[in-house]
């Protein structure tokens, strides 16, 4: 039941774009996105609710397609500070189930 993220890892140069996908085998009611830097705690990025809405946070945005049970995170013009592991989280009854994670590295 753990959401599956793809790709597992991404390597970028500063200024390049990336897309991280999150797929669930169960119906989705909302999707969370978090970023975790090495040795630190996960930090909340955004929540997307049912309705296919797309939200944005600086140059990071996300979409949510509940019919396909998928969400995608878009990182535009990546910065060094974007490096880290990204997790999606999907609701299951009263708990948030985190995805498999995508490690993103941005180089100068």
């Amino acid at each position, binding site marked *: 039941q*753990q959401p599956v993220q793809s790709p597992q890892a991404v390597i970028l140069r500063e200024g390049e774009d990336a897309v991280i996908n999150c797929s669930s085998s169960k119906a989705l009611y*909302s999707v*969370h996105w*978090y970023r*975790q830097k090495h040795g*630190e*705690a*996960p*930090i*909340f990025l955004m*929540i997307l609710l049912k309705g296919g809405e797309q939200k944005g946070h600086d140059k990071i945005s996300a979409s949510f397609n509940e019919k396909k049970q998928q969400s995608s995170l878009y990182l535009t013009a990546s910065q060094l500070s974007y490096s880290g*592991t990204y*997790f999606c*989280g999907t*609701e299951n009854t*009263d*708990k*948030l*189930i*985190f995805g*498999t*994670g995508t490690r993103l590295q941005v180089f100068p």
Partner: protein
Amino acid sequence: DTAVSQTPKYLVTQMGNDKSIKCEQNLGHDTMYWYKQDSKKFLKIMFSYNNKELIINETVPNRFSPKSPDKAHLNLHINSLELGDSAVYFCASSLQRQGKLFFGSGTQLSVL
């Protein structure tokens, strides 16, 4: 002021010992959680408390016992530690169930 604080940050102990991790949040949240992050970085929920009541108890060995003395505190006691318990344990809180999670800095537990 740290929003969600947990102690200790590092815990190194021998197999068979008993240890505790403490967590406190000053955000006024009503729901607190324990997550375990293993060596592959998978984050798995262990327990959740809402207003001091246990609402989520995943298939965790009963050697793990959470306690919430009040809404702002959630502790985790682990008996008879095993090698497989080595991981990073994160405390988190949210204003509502399934709301935005605020994580503590984590406790890296190493069982030798």
